[in-house]
């Protein structure tokens, strides 16, 4: 299976976004950074023991699924929406949801629009090759409105057209909108409309049928979530491991039981994954959270204990 391939290769091949601020993009030194990229690092740390043993393959909206299906990448972590068709017809397994998103609209304030229902007749910028196109068509149809699509190839082009005024509104996942807005020179002149017209659970996916590998990615992600829940951070992990009495934390960190072995990994796998770039909350805050220019609120992505949807099954 893929797990053996990865181990043999000594390198994880991770399909990522070509350039989406905060989620996945190379920096000036060519090192990939971002919310999605951190998960790649965690998986690499878990499997190979080294968070830097990742090869990032940039994928476009159009090439991403083929890259995964053909085995060019081991796992695709690239804000891809979990949908029936992709899961069933395209034969992929979504192993979790690392970001709960929904499609929203951004408009300029001076347009005088306060609800998406008022967008009848508007020109809408939208990225090609995504589920958003279909959602958009459905939304306008359901509300008996018309619109003119301007189909753009990527996020930066969409933003450019929106800013230039080639379209009245830019629609994409709300996280993307927030990220875009945050970096605009005149952020206050743009508002994100309250309607979220679709569910966009974004998550890592692997090929159908390779369940062991799917489990590795899935539980690595859950380990990050659980770590946040238990207050384990990259800073205090050693200390926690040494001092904790909580049996679940012990199981999670490999002090007890043999969860690692069941996954085909060693027992420190989760410790390394968490240490790589911190727990889920740390990753969120470091890449897209309120301290960053992107300033996303946790919202749905808060832990279930704090009213969000992020919920990890028990480690037992």
């Amino acid at each position, binding site marked *: 299976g893929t797990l053996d391939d990865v181990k043999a290769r000594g390198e994880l091949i991770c399909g990522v976004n070509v350039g989406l601020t905060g989620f996945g993009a190379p920096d000036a030194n060519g090192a990939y950074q971002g919310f999605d990229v951190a998960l790649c690092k965690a998986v690499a740390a878990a499997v190979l023991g080294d968070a830097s043993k990742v090869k990032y393959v940039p994928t476009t909206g159009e090439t991403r699924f083929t890259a995964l299906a053909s085995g060019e990448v081991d796992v695709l972590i690239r804000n891809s929406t979990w949908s029936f*068709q992709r899961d069933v017809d395209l034969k992929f397994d979504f192993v979790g949801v690392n970001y709960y998103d929904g499609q929203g609209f951004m408009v300029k304030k001076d347009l005088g629009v306060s609800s998406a229902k008022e967008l009848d007749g508007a020109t809408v910028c939208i990225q090609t090759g995504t589920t958003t196109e279909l959602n958009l068509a459905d939304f306008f149809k359901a509300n008996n409105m018309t619109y003119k*699509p301007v189909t753009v*190839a990527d996020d930066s082009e969409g933003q450019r057209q929106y800013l*230039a005024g080639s379209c009245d509104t830019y629609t994409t996942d709300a996280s993307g909108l927030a990220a875009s807005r945050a970096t605009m020179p005149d952020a206050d002149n743009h508002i994100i409309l309250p309607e979220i017209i679709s569910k966009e659970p974004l998550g890592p996916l692997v090929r159908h049928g390779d369940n062991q590998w799917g489990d590795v990615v899935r539980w690595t992600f859950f380990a990050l979530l659980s770590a946040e829940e238990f207050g384990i951070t990259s800073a205090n992990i050693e200390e926690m491991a040494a001092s904790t009495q909580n049996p679940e934390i012990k199981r999670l960190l490999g002090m007890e039981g043999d969860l690692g072995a069941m996954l085909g990994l060693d027992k420190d796998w989760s410790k390394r994954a968490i240490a790589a770039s911190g727990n889920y909350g740390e990753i969120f805050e470091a890449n897209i959270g309120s301290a960053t220019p992107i300033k996303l609120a946790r919202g749905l992505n808060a832990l279930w204990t704090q009213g969000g949807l992020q919920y990890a099954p028990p480690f037992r």
Partner: protein
Amino acid sequence: MAFVQDTPKESFRLSMLIYDTRYRSITIQVIVLILFLLFLSWLVNNTIQNLAAKDRTFDFGFLGARAGYDINQTLISYTNDSTHARAALIGVLNTLLSAVVGCTLATILGVFIGVLRLSKNWLVGRLMTVYVEVFRNVPVLLWILLAGTILSETTPAPSAYRVTEAMQAAGEAPKASMIFDDSIALTNRGINMPAPMVDNGLGRLELGPISMNANVLAFLIVLAAALWANHLIRSHAKRVQEETGIRPTTWWKSIAVIVLPLLVLGWWLGFHLDYPRLTKFNFTGGMEVLHSFTALTVALALYTAAFIAEIVRAGIMAVARGQSEAAFALGLRPGRTMNLIILPQALRVIIPPLISQYLNLTKNTSLAIAVSYMDLRGTLGGITLNQTGKELECMLLMMAIYLTISLIISSVMNMFNRAVKLKER
């Protein structure tokens, strides 16, 4: 001699397969054929295995399914309830529209620049050289991106045309205003122009599966008749010229014969123009030429024009200098010389490379997505491919369509080329 004796039949030896010129070529061809078939079956076999491994099928059924997405420029009716096949057709039509308009523009521009480059005017000659070199030596993708950016960055948004109450009160004029007597609006989305409309329309004509707008049909029929009448007038003029040597002036007759019937038809159908009006977000009504189309087509035309200019220049230079001298010596004026002597000859040199430029332009329309134009690549090879995940089918179909278009263009142009070829001994 009564009969010719044939050489006695040799018995066949195996070595003849290689050393006998008659069999040798057959041997080689058979080997090539076998290798080719092996290669083909290897490909097909791999494909079947891969499809099976991925648990996919190979069928075009998805083309009949609902597309579910919208397209901004549709030459024939289309909604998101139409099928993927229809979306692909929209894409093909958009590709063809851009290719045809682009080729026409590029040809006009290219001939113009090519001729100007030969002009004695130093400044114009240099400017044209700079144009040609700059456009030829930079990737076409950059021109497309730049054209898109320039069009959307330098034109006003529709909202700039709006006069708000506050502005009215203050007596301010809007930031932008429509041109040509408030009939054409240039926004950063496109150009909104008046559209022809009729009051007493003839409805639609249903001919089996084909449904046509009867008004358009009537217009075309009248236009054809008018052109035919004009042709009669011109051939009459030609006859008169051949008989008397003097060509009667026909331009006013031509205008009358073409314009009058159309005016009558328009009056009968209740023709009027539908002017674009500013609504909440956009101009509606009238006709809109999207900037995505303009940017792609103009960028391709500008880029290709640089190549065509070089071809035209080479073609004209290939016509020997003696030809124009001979024409001058016969008393022909420079304009006539160009029309009757130089261009007909230059054309023969120009056409073959021109064909490949047309092909290139057509193929380059596949970069449309860079400026958000929905061509075949954007619909069938883009959204449809992504939504259905049928890469193999979509790509093969798309290649087949492009190939067909290319072959049609080159065979039509080749036919034309054969027709004008010089007769030699």
